[in-house]
Structures are given as structure tokens and as C-alpha cells.
């Protein structure tokens, strides 16, 4: 291919394109949900999803996709299939009205991370951790512990042991972010140069 882009000129020839075949299902791999803690002490919030072959790669791609630019103190990922989702409500309907009350005999085998949607259009944010034996049980426990007069529209429950957390020795991943000034709009102040230029041209 003759291009003005030297990188394109270095690409190998791969033959004439035939009819483009539809991609096979899962060619782009499965999805993982990404949760970010923007600052120490702030709750984790859902940021979006990435496609990856496993949780380790999902973690790497999530770091690149969601925490490349703005402050981050911690990050975790979980397979989309491991997130249990409640119904969604609207207006003044609290979704906890649709959740059963906690059974007294829940054996509490696992811990679960509970996420709330506080406003439609916003991100789900971490409400807290509960112990239960199932997702249904976890939502019931959440109703006991986190339900207030505030309207919640949607609840997610994630079993803690399915999450790929940031390890203690990885906490320094984001330490150099503030030094990367070349990604900061404030690093491109053209005002002085512009003023100098205008002064010169106005005199000319």
C-alpha cells in the first residue's frame, strides 16, 4: 500500500480482501465490569466494561482504558456474568420495595459487594459489604443494612471472591499520574505566545 504514513507502508500485504466474513461469536472475547476508586476514602464506582480473555488481562486493559488520565487510588474488575442485577425502578419507586426481607436462617457463607444506582444516568456506587449464602440473600441483607428513605433505583450484588482486586504491591500503579503533565490541558498555555505574536503583527 502506498501511503503518506510510514507506519502503513511497513504493514505486510495480506492479499486481496474477499467478501468480509462475519466475525465468529466471542471473537472479541467476553466482558468484564470495571470499578474504580477515584480517591482514597471515596467509594468505588462502576466505570464501564472491557473485553478480555480473563480477569488478569481485564485488569490491565481496565487500567489503560479507565485510569490513564484522572486520579485513581484503586481498581477492580469482575466477569460481567458474576454481577447479579436487581430490577430497575423509576420516579419515586424505591427498588428495595421489590426485595424480599432477609431470612433469619441465612448461613452467611460468602461476602458480597453491594452497589446502588442513586440516580438514573449516574454510575452505580459501592454501598457496602454483606454476608450471605446467595445473591438473593445478599440483596435481602442489603435491604436490612443499607435501605433508608433515600430512593435507590437498581442494586448490583457481586460475590467478593470473584473480584480481581488491586494487590497491595500494585498500589503504586497510579503514583506517577500527576507527573504526566503532557496529558493535562493546563500544560498547553499559548496565551503569552499569542499576545507576543499579536503585538508584533499589530505594529507591522
Amino acid at each position, binding site marked *: 500500500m502506498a501511503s503518506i504514513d510510514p507506519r502503513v507502508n511497513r504493514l505486510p500485504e495480506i492479499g486481496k480482501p474477499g467478501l468480509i466474513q462475519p*466475525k465468529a461469536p466471542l471473537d472479541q472475547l467476553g466482558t468484564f465490569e470495571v470499578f474504580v476508586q477515584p480517591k482514597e476514602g471515596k467509594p468505588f464506582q462502576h466505570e464501564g466494561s472491557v473485553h478480555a480473555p480473563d480477569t488478569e488481562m481485564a485488569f490491565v486493559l481496565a487500567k489503560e482504558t479507565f485510569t490513564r488520565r484522572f486520579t485513581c487510588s484503586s481498581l477492580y474488575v469482575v466477569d460481567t456474568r458474576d454481577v447479579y442485577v436487581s430490577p430497575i425502578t423509576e420516579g419515586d419507586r424505591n427498588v428495595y420495595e421489590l426485595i424480599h426481607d432477609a431470612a433469619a436462617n441465612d448461613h452467611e457463607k460468602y461476602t458480597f459487594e453491594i452497589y446502588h444506582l442513586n440516580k438514573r*444516568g449516574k454510575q452505580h456506587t459501592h454501598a457496602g459489604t454483606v454476608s450471605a449464602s446467595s445473591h438473593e440473600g445478599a440483596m435481602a441483607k442489603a435491604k436490612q443494612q443499607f435501605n433508608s428513605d433515600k430512593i435507590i433505583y437498581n442494586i448490583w450484588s457481586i460475590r467478593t471472591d470473584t473480584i480481581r482486586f488491586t494487590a497491595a504491591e500494585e498500589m503504586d500503579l497510579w503514583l506517577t499520574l500527576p507527573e504526566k503533565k503532557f496529558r493535562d*490541558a493546563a500544560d498547553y498555555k*499559548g496565551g503569552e505566545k499569542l499576545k507576543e505574536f499579536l503585538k508584533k503583527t499589530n505594529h507591522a
Partner: protein
Amino acid sequence: MYGEGNTFEGIKNDGLAQEDPIQLSAFEARIDRGEKIEPTDWMPQLYRKQLIRMIEQHAHSEIIGALPEGTWITRAPGFRRKLALMAKVQDEVGHAQLLYSAAETLGKSREEMITDLLSGKSKYSNIFNYPAFTWADSCFISWLVDAGAIVNQLANSKGSYGPYCRALERICAEESFHLKYGHHCVIYLAAGTAKQRAMFQEALNRWWPPMMHFFGPADKISAHTEVLMKWKVKMSSNDDMRNQFLDMYVPKIWELGFTIPDPKLKKNIATGRWEYTEPDWEEFKRVINGDGPCNKERLEVRRIAEERGRWVRDALRSPKATYVSPLA
């Protein structure tokens, strides 16, 4: 960055008559209250279809848009410019990831979207079918094409679909650096040598016609566009966005002493609207349909990347994977 591309063709049967009237009125009431629509909500087929088309085109535009600017990474003037341009191009590719995910929540898989990009069925912003001949072209893109994209994206971020709005808010926050970087580059060319000034003037001459195409032809007001505006899918008319762009950036271009290659361009003080030579919409159509200077190269680069990466994806794919839509 993004251009609406405006390949919204009218849909012959919008299916509205077949929608459940009770569901439809609850859906419209939610939008009227200013509440966002989330992926698991009921929505009309037309809403889903138009949003998929719009978000998918936007995602493709980010991926393809990385190519003309990327042309100058290897030859950026100096380390600082190179670092910034690499970071910017990486941002654009990252934006595509966010947008593909938002479109996936509506039920079109990423595999289908990439297939449709490669086969030419899905479009992307027309402006990226033009080549970046010199460093100044890449500066024009960084400053003014991104500026146009921000006008468009800010409008769309007030739309009704939750996942798209969230993606756009993040994108707009990241793009503020692109705009400042682009302006910085152009100020330095303007204040530079006669040769540098001439280089930017030439880039401006080349890119002005596609820039005027960028927001698409004037909208035909039809029942179809009215319903999309009511549902907050289409947030601003193409002419309004073009006018807003001209309002914000023509004075900044003139301030630097450059000439915009359109003798008719001026602001009508009485109407507050810009007047200009009608862009050549025949050329716009011709290029969108595949006959532009770079269409073939853009898709070929994507096709090679997909083919060369296939063995990696095949090797990595877990037999336990199953397909689900991302959550939000």
C-alpha cells in the same frame, strides 16, 4: 473526536404503530421528566435502532480518526509534541472502547459492529477519509476537528440514553486537553517562520471544505427527526452545530492572521447566523460512499490489524466464555 457523519437515512417503516402504547407513553414520560433510559428499560425499536447506529458510527469514527493524526507521530517536531500526540491518539482509541461498550448495551455485539465497519456497511465520520499531508494538517485536526467534535459531543451528552451520556462525559473531559494542545500547536505555527505560517494556511485551505461537511447537510425536518428530537436522541440540528462551531472558532482563526478559503463567509449581525458558500454535498456523498482519497487505505489498515490479531484472540479465548451484554 467525532463528526455526526449524518448518514441517518430515513427508515421506511419506523414500527411506531406496532409499539405498545402504554409502554411507549411511560417511556416518553420518563424522558420528559429528564430521567435517563438505562439498558434494561423497555424502549421502542426505533429508539434502539437509531441509538445503535449513532453510537456505533461514533465508535468507528474514533478508531478511524486515530489514523490521519497517527500519520505524524513518527515525525512530530520534537519530543514534547510527540509525547502529546501519542497520548491524544491513545485517547481516541480509548474513546472507541467506551463507545463500543455503550452500543453493546443496546444489543449489538462488538463482533457485528467490527464486521460492519470492515465490510463498509457501517459508516464513520467522513472527514477521516482525507489525508494529513503535513504536520500542519495534524495540527488542524487536533485543534479544529476536535473542536467540532466537542460541539457535537457536548450536545449529545445531554441526551436520554444513560450509558452513552456517561461515555460522552468522560470523553469530553479527556478532550479538553486535545483542544488546548491543538490550539497551542497552531499558535506556534502562526508565530513561527513564513514557511510555518504558509504550511498551516495550506492545511486550512485543504481541510476547510471537509470541515464544513463535518456537521452534515441541513436536516430535513420530517416526522422522523421530530420523534428523535422528542426522545432526545438527536440533540441539535446540523446547521445549529455548524453555526456554533463557526461562532466559536472563526474569530480565533482570523486572530492568528489566517484566511479562511470562503469569500462569502461572514456573520450576519441581524440574524446572528453565519453565511457561507453552500458546501459541495455531492462531494460529501461521493466520499461517504467510498470514493474519497483515503477510504480504501483506512479500511485496509483496520482489516490488516484484525487479521494479524486473530491468532492472538483465538489463542486467548477461554472455552468457558459465553456472550452477555455489558451492564451499563
